[in-house]
């Protein structure tokens, strides 16, 4: 075989492998960040969503005995009610933005399976 052809094949192989792996994994995990308004439009659907919104300050209600955390997220225009079955994270009240992953239930509440926080905690960056 020609040496150049060999080099081309040898360098294409890893690229193709990566492409294949990435594509397969992409189908399983890609997730949009929906804004609150966009998410609200999808309320009736049985679809897993990832939503980013601002925490409504006085909305947090935490029952540590279950534990159940309820709060509201907003994007200025709209607001949704969010329910999370799990422990209140330490830095929750510090969070600016909250990212939630889950589905709407029939009452229009957003049931969270995964809760992520964006905290302006001091340990990186300045205010």
């Amino acid at each position, binding site marked *: 075989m020609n040496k150049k052809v060999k080099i081309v094949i040898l360098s294409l192989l*890893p690229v193709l*492998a*990566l492409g294949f*792996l*990435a594509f*397969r*994994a*992409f189908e*399983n*995990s*890609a*997730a*949009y*960040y929906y804004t609150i308004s966009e998410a609200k439009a999808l309320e009736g659907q049985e679809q897993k969503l*990832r939503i980013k919104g601002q925490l409504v300050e006085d909305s947090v209600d935490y029952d*540590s*005995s*279950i*534990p159940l955390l309820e709060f509201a997220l907003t994007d200025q225009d709209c607001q949704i009610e969010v329910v999370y079955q799990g*422990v*209140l994270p*330490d*830095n*929750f*009240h*510090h969070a600016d933005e909250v*990212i939630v992953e889950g589905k709407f239930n029939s009452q229009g509440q957003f049931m969270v399976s995964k809760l*992520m*926080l*964006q*905290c*302006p*905690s*001091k*340990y*990186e*960056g*300045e205010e």
Partner: protein
Amino acid sequence: MHYLGLISLYIAFGSALLAVLAGARAQARTRLSRRANLLSSLAVALSTLVLVFAFLSNDFRLAYVARNSARSLPVLYKISALWAGQSGSLLLWLLVISLFSLAVQRTRRFRDGGFDLRINTVINMVRVLFIILLLFVTSPFELLADPPSNGSGLNPMLQSVGMVVHPPLLFMGFSGFLVPFAIVVSRLWARNSSDSWLQEVRPWALFAWLFLTAGIVSGGQWAYNELGWGGYWAWDPVENASLFPWLTGTALLHTLLLDKGHAGRKWWSYILIALTFALTIFGTFLTRSGVLDSVHAFSGGVLGSIFFVVLAAIVLFSAGLAWRRRSCLAEDPTDQGLSANLLGTAIKAGNVLYLLLFAAVLLGTMFPLLSRNLAGREIVLDETFFNQVTVPIFLVLFFLMGLAPVLAAGEVRRALLPLGLAVLVSLYVLFAVGGGVTASVTFGIAVFGAATHLGALFGLSKRRPKLGSTLVHVGVLLMLVGVTGSSIYTDDVFVTVEPGEEIQFGGYTVGYQRLQTRYGMDRYTVGTTLRLSRSGREVGTLTSEKTFWENRTQPSTQVGVFSTFKEDLYLNLAGWEGQTARLHLQRFALVGWIWFGSWVVYLGAVLALLEHVLGRKLGKQVKAWQ
């Protein structure tokens, strides 16, 4: 007092500039360059000391001190608060770079004039960059117009030994990779076409790698013990940023071992050195620019743009230099085909795999940004993506690693017995233990690698392998077992318990007595200690606490960890009502192997460094004898 810190920074700035110029001239001024470098380093050290002193003496006139410290903070954390924020971290990084520049000057080769002075120029250019940032963009010596009587304190999450050691280790690793870059640039700049720099950069790269590894592992260990979700790695952009230079740096260490005569030896080394250095800067850009969202908080702003410009400059410069000096990077034609062995081919294949891993993690990390610009929609990829892409590549890489000793000895047949053993273990895991195909294949590969390495070490092969690198490989395999075990064999349960109640979990009997409350000056702590017993015998306790702070809305949780050879029990006190407690209990298999394996890796890396240094000394003596 803070003027002293500022003035020293200015002095450091001036002398670093002087060192840049003195080294860059054709008629290099050795003494000037050296003294300027020394003066700059001392000034940086003084400036750091001033800031440490400000922390220790509770000087809350300094905004940085007021933001990150408080009177009641223990002394250890007053010192570590130095790197709790942005400007202090940069100052610490600058200090570490300065230490490295002094270490380079102390080497015999430098004193003999064997190193080109341009090495000082390159190092001091980086130093100038950091000083500019500290002086004009994010100063740690900024004063408050209206100083508070007490600081706002250090984030409780950072008040742990893990966060005392993690940042300095990481900065040691990051700055360490500047030295190989400076060496190779100075060599090429001087049109030196010998391959001596491949040997010269190796101890520095090894040293930096050791610290970078320790930095990454200590960060994971901190997250595991402190953050309370039971994980140690989440493919967060900030974590990935530290992984990038680690991947290319690991590839570099292997490439430097290629024998004379391997095609592309110098090119691979040069590219990996430049890439690793650029990635240490890229990491800072990623974490400081706010281009990506992360659970670690980011700051936007001018700092990110500066790092981006610098990064672009480094990439363009490295590429340009390589092109202008491509004749220096070509292999000596007389060496060609000298010893093209299988090990070399495997190392180069490994390089391709490391670069693939880098590309995969980079793609995943930057995807939100890419999709925002290309599709107008932010698409975030979660751990599933990273795990599914990287695990297969990692497994091939670990298999290659297992082959290393037999390839090095040129005895491929010696791989058969370990391979048989690996297949047996895989089948056993698949059918008797469970956990699926991934677990079975991974444990098989781990056993294969352990068998080939230990076999070679205990004299089953003609060529006795080096102890250091063998230990590093074995340590990595132990970590592989730990990571696999703790991600696949897990268990968790939420329970509500009354005082005196006992529950069964993971083969343990867990007994709850009561909640205890302690009061401190600015806090109170609620906690509980569970008794653990196994088949009627008490084996240990688990303590988890929640601390509420007077001037913080955010409580801090201490998780309880009970660690054995086989598994960790992990307790999180989730809540309570009266004396009724709500507990989150988790079980992770084999976590301890990760931390134990990391110590084996460190030991191996230290031995490899010693072997390198002593080996060269012994070699010289032997030569002198002959």
